[in-house]
């Protein structure tokens, strides 16, 4: 039998999404530079999805070509375009990008509330010039996470100030801190952040996972049972150390 050449798998990648709201050649380049300067490491060679769903007005072919060119020049890697109009779709493919359908859940800034609409009317340029800050507050849980319960901190860190019981599961895209005994499962960096860590004051976990790599209870028993500990990823293995 012939050797198997490949395997097909489904997976999810982390990518930056740029919600394009308005466009002007000069402003776009200037604002992109400014944004990248805030976190050059983060944006370096980062995969980028262009979201046109919330673009006001009609984007021309040349404008889209220019946007993609500027993004490449600034070190981003545009990989796909989401929510493009049927007219633009050929241009998108011509640029070597995948064309994705618009997201089902529209972003929250659609002016459903009159208050937001008012703000936009007062300073229309400002809303475009000021990209929303990316800082996300951590999710803080003050009550015990009981058996059968699941807590997920999407896009941020998770702080649990009580016990995580056996049979409970805590997940975060970022770090996980547990200030009571950790007896359940803790999964940090569930969207693939290999720098995520798990910190706890009393390690009795069933399982600790970082970015999909995990250690089980038996291993933890040998290393740091009932002690304050933290877990982090080194290459492809999880290191657990007493704090």
């Amino acid at each position, binding site marked *: 039998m012939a050797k198997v050449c490949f395997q097909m798998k489904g997976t999810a990648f982390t990518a930056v999404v740029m919600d394009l709201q308005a466009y002007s050649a000069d402003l776009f380049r200037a604002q992109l530079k400014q944004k990248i300067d805030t976190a050059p490491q983060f944006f370096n060679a980062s995969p980028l999805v262009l979201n046109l769903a919330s673009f006001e007005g009609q984007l021309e072919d040349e404008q889209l070509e220019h946007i993609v060119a500027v993004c490449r020049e600034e070190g981003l890697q545009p990989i796909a375009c989401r929510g493009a109009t049927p007219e633009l779709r050929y241009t998108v493919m011509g640029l070597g990008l995948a064309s994705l359908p618009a997201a089902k859940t529209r972003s929250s800034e659609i002016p459903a509330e009159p208050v937001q609409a008012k703000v936009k009317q007062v300073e229309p340029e400002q809303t475009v010039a000021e990209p929303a800050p990316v800082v996300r507050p951590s999710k803080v849980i003050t*009550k*015990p996470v*009981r*058996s*059968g319960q699941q807590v997920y901190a999407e896009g941020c860190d998770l702080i649990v100030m009580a*016990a995580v*019981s*056996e049979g409970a599961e805590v997940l975060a895209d970022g770090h996980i801190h547990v200030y009571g*005994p950790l*007896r359940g499962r803790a999964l940090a960096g569930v969207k693939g952040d290999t720098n995520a860590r798990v910190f706890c004051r009393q390690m009795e976990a069933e399982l600790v996972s970082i970015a999909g790599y995990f250690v089980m209870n038996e291993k933890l028993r040998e290393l740091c049972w009932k002690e304050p500990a933290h877990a982090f990823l080194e290459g492809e293995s999880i290191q657990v150390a007493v704090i």
Partner: protein
Amino acid sequence: MAKIIVVTSGKGGVGKTTTSAAIATGLAMRGFKTVVIDFDVGLRNLDLIMGCERRVVYDFVNVIKKEATLNQALIKDKRTPGLFILPASQTRDKDALSMEGVQTVLENLAKDFEYIICDSPAGIEQGAQMALYFADEAIVVTNPEVSSVRDSDRIIGILQSKSLKAEQGGTVKEHLLLTRYNPERVASAEMLSVADVEDILAVPLLGVIPESEAVLKASNQGAPVILDQESEAGQAYLDAVSRLLGEDVKHRFLEVQKKGFLKRLLGGK
């Protein structure tokens, strides 16, 4: 306004009905008008423990289906004044309970009673969720044994997410009641200790009921064990009722009793 207290556990056979009967009787003994409701439709037990099985004519499901009035279904306890029992149906199943029906019955009882004790069925399904949904407080009955503790943990999670109080942004006040506690077996590490269970569940301790022959005897005689004030279990339930009423009572029966010479000779407890 009446206080609704659910007696629940997740796991079966840990002593929910025994506790419901004892606590309800204890509250009535202290002068509070109390009703105890059997939510275990299809596995009617409370009437046996309360010794009123022969007086059941109409039941909880009849009242919900409007086949009988509340007054027709309520059974007045013969021993303790101010205590009433609303028995479950033995011929129906738990689907016979409807959320609106339960709510109406509880609202009507709340007009007349100071305490409503809901004896929950085992499990975490609809029947158990119905029993705890309207509760203000919960007595979580746990045996000092790992599977019971884990099930209790699960039911506390449900209390804090699927009860009316939780949906309104409040909390159901929880009490931990440890039953079938045997200090000797704890000492020989066959059983979890009070400290172990408190550590895992992190719920304030209402009481510890020692394992006692008096409990089985009381059940079979149809007299709540709290009436047997000679027994340690009866005394422990009395203490628990006091704590439920906000009194500060020291926990007893936690240590291994040193048997005196005579006791050893007679072998009695």
